[in-house]
């Protein structure tokens, strides 16, 4: 910064005030950008009795975390977090596993099909979910899985959600990973192949370890997307108890979160895991997003 002002200062004199103005603008904009969230936080920290008496825009007498604890315990949110975990962890791992295999095939073996294959995967990922939901819903109702899922069907089961997440998201990941693998030096795999390594070894022991940065970025992105999914669970899960947290929020807000303060607390609690992931892995998230900017 100091160097840039120094060099620019020779050409244009009034650089300092402009910078200060810019900082004032950006700080103001950033603060107003966070305003809705800060407002939610403020409402959540105040007891309902106080806000209903004094109004929501008023100076606080009490600020505490009661709404958060109440929202969390009354609605048994931990149960829904567990549901999300059961869906998201296998879905993320399976998506990365399957899409890296497709990417490896597309990037390393120039068979006739590979461009078409990549096109199918990527286009599929860009479709609005609602385009396929009607037949998908019927399909899930038709598939009987007695003893495998609690519902005895693919419908209303965690397995069903995992499968659709994997199928849908693998398109995006295959695209990103194949681009990444194409950048890896070919000599590595060539040498291994000449040495008689099997294709599997080439993939598992040589290519995958080199893809760690891309895989980490995608894992971050996928975790947040799958955690945030609202639609699949809304339609493909019928029992409220089986819903992951994001979709459950809608039911909970009617049943347990009876006042705006509790709704605010419930919504913010739901946001906590993604915020933690975001603050810890911001770089991963952003690089993943720009790695494959075709994501809708």
């Amino acid at each position, binding site marked *: *910064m100091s160097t840039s002002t120094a060099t620019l200062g020779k050409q244009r004199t009034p650089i300092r005030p402009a*910078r200060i103005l*810019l*900082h004032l603008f*950006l700080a103001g904009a950033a603060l107003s*950008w966070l305003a*809705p*969230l800060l407002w939610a936080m403020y409402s959540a920290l105040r007891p309902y009795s106080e806000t209903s008496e004094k109004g*929501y825009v008023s100076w606080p007498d009490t600020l505490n975390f009661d709404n958060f604890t109440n929202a969390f315990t009354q609605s048994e949110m931990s149960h829904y977090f567990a549901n999300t975990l059961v869906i998201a962890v296998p879905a993320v791992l399976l998506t990365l596993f*399957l899409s890296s*295999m*497709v990417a490896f095939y597309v990037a390393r*073996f*120039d068979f006739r099909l590979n461009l078409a294959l*990549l096109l*199918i995967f990527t286009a599929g990922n*860009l479709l609005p979910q*609602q*385009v*396929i939901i*009607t*037949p*998908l819903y*019927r*399909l899930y109702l038709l598939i009987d899985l007695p003893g495998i899922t609690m519902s005895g069907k693919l419908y209303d089961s965690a397995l069903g959600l995992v499968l659709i997440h994997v199928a*849908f998201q*693998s*398109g995006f990941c295959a695209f*990103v990973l194949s*681009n990444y693998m194409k*950048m*890896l030096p*070919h000599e590595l795999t*060539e040498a291994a192949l000449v040495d008689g390594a*099997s*294709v*599997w070894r080439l993939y598992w022991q040589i290519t995958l370890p080199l893809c760690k940065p891309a895989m980490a*970025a995608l894992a971050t992105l996928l975790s947040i997307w799958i955690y*945030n999914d*609202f*639609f699949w669970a*809304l339609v493909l899960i019928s029992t409220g108890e089986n819903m992951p947290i*994001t979709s459950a*929020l*809608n039911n909970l*807000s009617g049943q347990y979160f009876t006042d*705006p303060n509790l*709704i*605010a607390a419930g919504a913010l609690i*739901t*946001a906590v895991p993604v915020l933690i992931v*975001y603050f810890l892995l911001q770089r991963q*998230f952003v*690089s993943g*997003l*720009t*790695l494959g*900017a*075709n994501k*809708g």
Partner: protein
Amino acid sequence: MTTDIPAKSPEAAAVPPPGAAPVKQPAKQGHQRLLTRRDRLTLGLMAGLPTILHVTLVWVTALASILLAFTTWDGIGFDTIKWVGFDNFKELFTNNPQFWPAVEHNVVWFVVLILIPTPLGLFLAVQLDKKIRFSRVYQTAFFLPVVLSMAVIGFVWQLVYNPDTGLINSVIGANEPGKYIDWIGDPDLNLWAVLIAASWRHTGYLMILYLAGLKGVDPALREASALDGANEWQTFKNVIFPTLRPTNTIVLVVTIIEALRAFDLVFVFNKGAEGTELLSILITNNIIGESSRIGYGSAIAVVLLVISLAVIIPYLVATFRKERRA
């Protein structure tokens, strides 16, 4: 797309120089000769299994949507499927009071996202690209809504819009009986209210895309322009913006798709009640609503599918063609 935005991430720096490309061809032929039968089987499974899963759940169902759109079916047993030709579409286009408003709202959604978050995201990106202090802090603030789910965003903005207790009405004094402004219920207002929330999220996303694009702009271009005596705006207009073309294409596609996918936010807000109908909402109402009309819902899905593919296919074909040339 990776190749569209050069050097936007540390990974992208690993792109081999173009000179390395011709080596690929003979190497690949060498590959195939060395493969054993077992290798071929492994490869077949590696590409095949994920493809089967993806194609079955995404493309077969998309195809089934098209077929079902020409039938009526109550969902109980396959023998009740009846072929009705274009009846569903006829009814949809002429006799559904929600259909044309929904189409209109999807279009408005796109137009608003292009008119507000796109220039705003670009503007913020340009400011944050100036090597200023705290750039990362500002970025984090603007980008924060993007990591939140649309459902959470819906709830957070309800706290802003609520007629009784919301921030806006409380501040402007419209939270008393007789003075209510119903941001969520009023059909003349609710779409705009939702769109503000949608724009709030979309701006951060576009800012990140543009920041990545701007990192790829050659600094020498900027310097040359400054030496020519161009001011900041002239440099941006004549030098920077033209080089952002690939990013603009991505932004356009991302925004169209976002407008077609819009669902969660509206569903959380008011379930797509009057004023906020969307194609995605109409389709979903035909599944989880009281009137479960499979063929009819599929017909709406086909409309959405056709619009989506009209955008997706040309974009991807162009992208892949460019990649192949590269």
